[in-house]
């Protein structure tokens, strides 16, 4: 019937086989989840130096003292979270708006140079970021001189080629007849975009929003390059600073790591469907 025999083998055998599979899958899952588990339970330990602490795989203490220690480390600790939020939300919104606009134009409107321009955009995906990092740094820091500002963190990711590609792929599957009839009704292209395309693309745009938010929340490299004052750093950069300044404080470091990761966990558990859909949407056919 399928790759696995589902009906042609006896019930007890089927049951045993599936139980064995679940056990194997759980074992491997535990191995990959272990660092996260270890991080969360250790964060509730006392903020004492590591030499005196011994690691435990089970939660022994339950105190928020290490979290307090992390937030006391810098007067800007809360600001880091706020910065991450501001940057990630801005990048998310601009990406959804501008990528969907461009995706619509590239998939449904005929204009001169469409294919050439799109090919040009796509070619950007093949360039490793190491090539652009130095000139981009010079541009932002030396030419625009916008180091340590929100624009320096947001502008380079305002709209990514990947998201344009994602939007174009999806919108290409919207039937032309719907757009034609909207035109007959007297809609201009902007009205078609807001009244027809946007509502039909809600799911893919939600996926785009979530993945874009996750990526900019977790990104380390660029914020690390363009921020050198504590007040403008994001939580990921702040966590790195904390680690280098407090190399022996085990539990507070785990508390910091937990703080940087928990917002994404919360988002993941509440919007799981979109996350999991996002992996395969526009990825590959096969």
């Amino acid at each position, binding site marked *: *019937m*399928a*790759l*696995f025999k589902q009906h042609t083998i006896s019930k007890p055998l089927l049951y045993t086989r599936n139980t064995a*599979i*679940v056990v*194997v899958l759980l074992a*491997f*899952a535990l*191995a*990959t989840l272990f*660092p*996260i588990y*270890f*991080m969360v339970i*250790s964060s509730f330990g006392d903020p004492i130096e590591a030499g005196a602490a011994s690691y435990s*795989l089970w939660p022994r203490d339950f105190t928020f003292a290490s979290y307090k220690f992390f937030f006391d480390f810098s007067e800007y600790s809360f600001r880091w979270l706020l910065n991450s939020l501001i940057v990630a939300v801005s990048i998310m919104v601009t990406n959804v708006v*501008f990528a969907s606009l*461009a995706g*619509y*134009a590239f998939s449904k409107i*005929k*204009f001169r140079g469409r294919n050439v321009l799109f090919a040009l*955009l796509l070619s*950007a995906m*093949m*360039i*490793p970021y*190491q*090539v*652009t*990092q*130095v*000139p981009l740094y010079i*541009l932002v820091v030396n030419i625009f001189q916008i180091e340590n500002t929100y624009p320096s963190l947001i*502008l*380079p990711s305002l*709209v990514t*080629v990947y998201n344009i590609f994602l939007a174009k792929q999806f919108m290409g599957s919207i039937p032309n007849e719907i757009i034609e009839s909207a035109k007959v009704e007297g809609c*201009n*292209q902007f009205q078609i975009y807001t009244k027809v395309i946007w509502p039909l693309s809600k799911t893919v745009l939600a996926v785009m929003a979530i993945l874009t938010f996750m990526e900019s929340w977790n990104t*380390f*490299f660029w914020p690390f390059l363009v921020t050198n004052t504590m007040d403008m750093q994001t939580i*990921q950069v702040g*966590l790195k600073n904390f*680690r280098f300044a407090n190399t022996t404080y085990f539990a507070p*470091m785990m508390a*910091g790591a937990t703080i940087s*990761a928990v917002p*994404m*966990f919360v988002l*993941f558990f509440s919007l*799981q469907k979109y*996350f*999991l859909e996002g*992996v*395969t949407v526009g*990825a590959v*056919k*096969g």
Partner: protein
Amino acid sequence: MAQPARAAAEGSNIKRNGVWSKAFNAIARKITGDGAWAYAFIAVALVVYAMFTAYPVVSAFIISFQEYKPLGSSFIGLENYKETFGDSLFWKSIRNTIIYTVLTVPVALVLSFGVAILILPLKKWLQTAFKAVYYLPVVASGVALSVVWLWIYDPLPAGILNQFIGWFGIDNQNWLGTTKTSMFSLVLMAWLSSHGTSIIIYLAALLGIDNSYYEAAELDGASFFQKLWHIVVPFLKPTTLFLFVTGIIGSFQVFQNAYLMTGGGPDNATTMVGLLIFNNAFKYFEFGEAAAQSLVLAAIIAIVSFLQFKFAGKDVEY
């Protein structure tokens, strides 16, 4: 000259009225024809692309032929490239990158393929549950995970991994601190970090294989492994190729874990190309050399991807 002035006057008018929709309508009336709309829709994307991708790429080429100084760089021809190819550390970093890639990418593929196969016969809710469980580490930030792994690799006997190998009678290791184990430590971290994305992609592809193929094979008396080898593997070849190519491209650019965990040490045993370029650029401010090295890296990635498609992708249709 008159036009910008008029536009500016209009702009201030709109601001005074404070009605954005009026501005929109004013602009909208001026745009006639679908082509003009299309250009308006892609305008921001094109500006961002031109400024933050196209310009930097062109600039990288120029800088790679220069000795970069903030006030007036001087052209030095191919000097940066000569230096790159004559630098033993550059070759060592290439070697490290290749070792890391060879040890991580195929293992990741096999693991995620195996997990996807095992998830396949389970009930729907179990499939979803396992997908979520395996995807969870993807959403955790890389910096947070590197902080955790740093403590797992604690060289003291109390360190988690040292305790673990102690049960098997293996001596304490200074995981990240010696050339013997530092690369292995980064590789182990990659093995046990998330394969969620590729698992889900594999599973989607597996669910796309029509049952009739299996039925036909069963009529011919095919066993489980025969079906796996003759149906599943060929069917999943495009998926595998996609994951393989993207995996290798990603692995060649690896930077963050090496930077945060070992800093490339000890004795440059974990200095990957990505980290070397970063150090040259932002530690030594040798922008010219960094640009040259990044272009060499881009060329290597392009060649490797091309070869993969040419040899592995022969009978794959897209």
